[in-house]
Structures are given as C-alpha cells and as structure tokens.
C-alpha cells in the first residue's frame, strides 16, 4: 500500500505552548487511521497541519504527494474535511449547503440527492441548519466532506456529543467510506470508537506520539496480561491452576475464581487443566485488555482524566 500521508518531525507551538512535538506518521491508502488521545493532546493541531489549515513550525508533511502549505488549493480539491465544532450559517438550508459545496470543486461532484439519501437527510433537505439535531448536523458535515468524492477524508472528533445510536450509525458510514476505497484519517478520544473503527491508531499525548499500530497489536505489545474468571464448586482447583506455568495469580472469592497470567496460550492451558481434571464449571469467561488499558499503561492515567 502506498502511503497517502507522510508526516515527519512536525512541531507546532502557540506562543510558549508546544502543541505538537516531533510528530511522525504514515497513513496508507485505503485504511482508517485514528489519532487517539485526551483533549488537548495535539490531535486537532496535527490534523489541521496535514489539511493545510495550519503551518507547522518545523518538519515536513506530504499529502497525496502535495505540500499542504504551498499547494493547499490543489490539495483541498482532492480531500474532504470535517472540522471539530464547526458550524454553518444558521439559516442555510441543507440542500443549499450541499449545492454550494458541490460548486466549489474542480471535479464533478457526486450526485447530491443520492448522498443526502445515503446519509438519511432527504426529508431534511429544506430544513435550516440551526433546526437540525446534533446527529443530523454531523451527517450534513459528513455529506459536505464527501461531496467532491475525495480520495482522503479527515474526520475530527466525529461522534463527540452524539447518542450511542447515532454514533453507531456514523461508524457504519465511515466503514462505508473505506469500503469504497477511500482513506480515512480521524481523531477521537473515545477508545471504543478507535477499537471498532480504526485499522491502525497512533496514541498521542502532550503533543508526542507514543506508539502506532493496529489496536490488536498495541494490546498484545503493551498489555499481554490475560484474565480468566470462572465459577466452580470444586474446592481444590486453585492449587491446580497455580501449577500452570504462565499463571501469575489465582484469586478465590468463594466459588468465583479469577486467574491472571500472560500470553495467548493462557486460556487454552486453563481449559486443558479443566478437562484433564474433569472440573465442572458453571461459568467461564475471559477478560481481554483493550486500548483503554494500553493507554493507562503507556501514560499512567485514564484517557478520561
């Protein structure tokens, strides 16, 4: 896969505040790439430097082979952008916004009515922007980001402030964008969103990127711990589990037993141990670490703090 975004050694300061420092990353064609981190970590600044809306103090950026600062209009013709907390004119109608945006690009715009229909906005086409719900506004902004059939789409904090149902609907939309062969670059502070949506993520904090990889591999690398929780009447099991090589701890709480250990084989070994000793269990579950745990491990605090 050829890289569509190349960022290397980018630094951006506002006065004495360093917003982004030594950020380097590459995004390949056709993937959903997520920049994740808490509010104020430098996500939006990084994204806006890549979009050509801000000029980094240092470092180089190449997007679709273009310099986003010198060739900003050429670039903006080929990308789609959704900005965090953007507004439109209060009394602009949905169809007018889409029609205006369609007129701004060199390339023939895609069928606006079809796009509105895909985003479930057809019956709102004559509504004023100010009278749309949060989810409808977000869907309109996605429509505006897609109107020029862009090769690369930027989505900044796409689902912030939306209810879970609208959030899921928008995730499906974003997957649909990727499935049509486009590249998506998004920022989020929602770990669940990153886990469910992104092919690869970069974890950013205090303007620096801590690690980049697929969510699964990040979890494997930083949180190899596995936990198995089971319920059994057998009073002797704890000792048998402690004999398994990679088990670190076995905690008994009446009939509930929690086994902590490392490595993918842990679960298999616990199951083998159960069947060899013919132990009867009434409940069995594995608890896998997630990106939230990775973030906690890497930064020492939860992303919500």
């Amino acid at each position: 896969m050829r890289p569509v975004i190349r960022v290397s050694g980018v630094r951006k300061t506002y006065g004495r505040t360093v917003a982004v420092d030594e950020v380097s990353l590459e995004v390949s064609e056709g993937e959903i790439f997520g920049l994740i981190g808490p509010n104020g970590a430098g996500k939006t600044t990084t994204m806006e430097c890549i979009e050509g809306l801000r000029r980094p103090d240092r470092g180089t950026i190449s997007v679709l082979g273009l310099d986003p600062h010198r060739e900003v209009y050429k670039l903006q013709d080929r990308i789609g952008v959704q900005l965090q907390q953007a507004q439109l004119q209060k009394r602009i109608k949905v169809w007018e916004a889409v029609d205006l945006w369609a007129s701004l690009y060199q390339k023939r715009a895609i069928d606006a009515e079809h796009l509105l229909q895909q985003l479930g906005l057809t019956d709102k086409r004559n509504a004023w922007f100010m009278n749309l719900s949060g989810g409808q506004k977000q869907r309109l902004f996605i429509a505006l980001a897609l109107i020029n059939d862009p090769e690369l789409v930027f989505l900044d904090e796409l689902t912030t402030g939306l209810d879970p149902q609208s959030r899921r609907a928008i995730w499906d939309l974003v997957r649909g964008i990727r499935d049509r062969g486009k590249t998506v670059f998004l920022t989020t502070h929602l770990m669940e969103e990153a886990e469910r949506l992104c092919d690869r993520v970069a974890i950013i904090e205090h303007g620096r990127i801590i690690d980049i990889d697929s969510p699964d591999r990040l979890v494997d690398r930083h949180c190899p711990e596995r936990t198995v929780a089971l319920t059994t009447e057998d009073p002797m099991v704890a000792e048998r589990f402690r004999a398994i090589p990679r088990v670190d701890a076995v905690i008994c709480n009446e009939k509930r037993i929690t086994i902590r250990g490392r490595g993918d084989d842990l679960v298999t070994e616990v199951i083998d141990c159960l069947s060899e000793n013919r132990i009867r269990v009434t409940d069995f579950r594995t608890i896998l670490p997630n990106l939230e745990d990775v973030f906690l491990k890497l930064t020492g605090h939860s992303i919500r703090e």
Partner: protein
Amino acid sequence: MILRGLWKLTWIEIKIFLREPLGAFGTIGFPVLVFLAWGRVASRRLAPSSLAASSFIRVDLPVFASLLIAVSAVLSLVTIISIYREGGILKRLRATPLRPQTILTAQVLVKLTLTAATLALMILAGKRYYPAGVHVRLFSFTMALLISTWSILSIGFLIASIVPTARFAQPIGAMILYPMIAVSGLFVPVESLPPGLHAVARVLPLTYAVPLLQGIWNGDAWLAHLGDVAALIVIFVVCAALSAKVFRWE
C-alpha cells in the same frame, strides 16, 4: 470555478440575510425610517418655500440617509463576520478550495446589493418630498453611494479584526462607525473642526463620501469629484492591505 463559487455563495448569503427578519429590518428599514421621519418633520416645521428647508430636504437629508445606509451595511458586515468567525463558519469555508478573498468578496457583494436595494426603497418612499421638477441622476448617485460603501467596508474588516467576540461586534462597530458621520462634514464643515478631529476626519472615508454624494446629487460632473473618488480608493487599498495583515479567521 472560483466565480461559480463566488456567485453561489453571494446568492446564498443574500437569501440567508433576508431570512433573518430583525437583521434585515434593522439594516434596510432603519435608514428609510429615519429618512421618512426627518423629511416629514422638516417639511412641516419649515415653511416649504424657505431656502433652508429646501436645501435641507433637497440635499442634506438624502445624503445623510444614504450615509446611514452605508454605515448600516458596514455594521451588518462587522456583525456577520464576527459571528461567522466565532461559529467556525469562516474556518469551515476556508477548508475548501475557496480562496479567502472569495469568501470576503461575497460578503462585500451582499452588502453592496443591500445598499443599492435600500437606496431604491428610500427613493420610492421619499418621492412625495420631491416635486416632479427635481431631477437627480439616480444612476450616478447610486454609483457614488456604492463606491463610498465599498470604501467604508474596508474599515468594517479592520473593525471585524479587533472585536473580541460576536457579542461586542454590534456595540463596538456602532461606537466607531456612527461618530464618523458626525465629523464627515455633513453637519459642520470639516475645516471648522478642532485640529485633532480635523486630522482624524481627513483619513476617514466618510469625509470624502459626503462631498461626493452632495455633488452628484446636485448634478455635478464626476470630473469635479475625481479627488474624492481617488481618496476613497486610497482608503480602501490601505485598509484592505492592513486588514489582510491583521484579519483573524478563527
């Protein structure tokens, strides 16, 4: 491509402007109302035949009302720009292939259209104060007003750069713009102002707009007012260059 975006943006902005009843009334209705009210008072209080009355109604009142039209349009520009900036609308428009100049040009075109429409309304409403014999070259006068408005709009962009939030745009804009009318030479000759004010008045566009409008209304040739037009253009160029430096998009 750029032109298509410009026309579309201008047309949408005009429609949006008319959809906001209060804003539209304030900007269009206010100058017309002032014109009608003063015209009425003046034609009653002063004997219709007196020289003072006829000179006031014939020249000063239409020029004053025209300046109000221009200033209202500029005030409306300041307010809209600050609201658009605060709401991230300017930033959203910039994240497209639209050039920044195109976005601002559309706003200028909206205000010039508005100025011309308000002037037309005022002339229709004020017809009864002007006997059939009075002959004003309306096309020339409209052009003079549009040039004046265009020049004052550049100050509007400067004001829009300094107002901290949208909430302050209206009061700060009014505090800067309306006093400009007072020192424009319409009520007191500029030469008789105290030296400090005189110097200020010399760099304000209204000081050149007033003689231009008065002259064209009275039937002067454009040639007689080339100096005023040149001054208005210079002020525009200087203010536009300045605001290009200090204008904030977000």
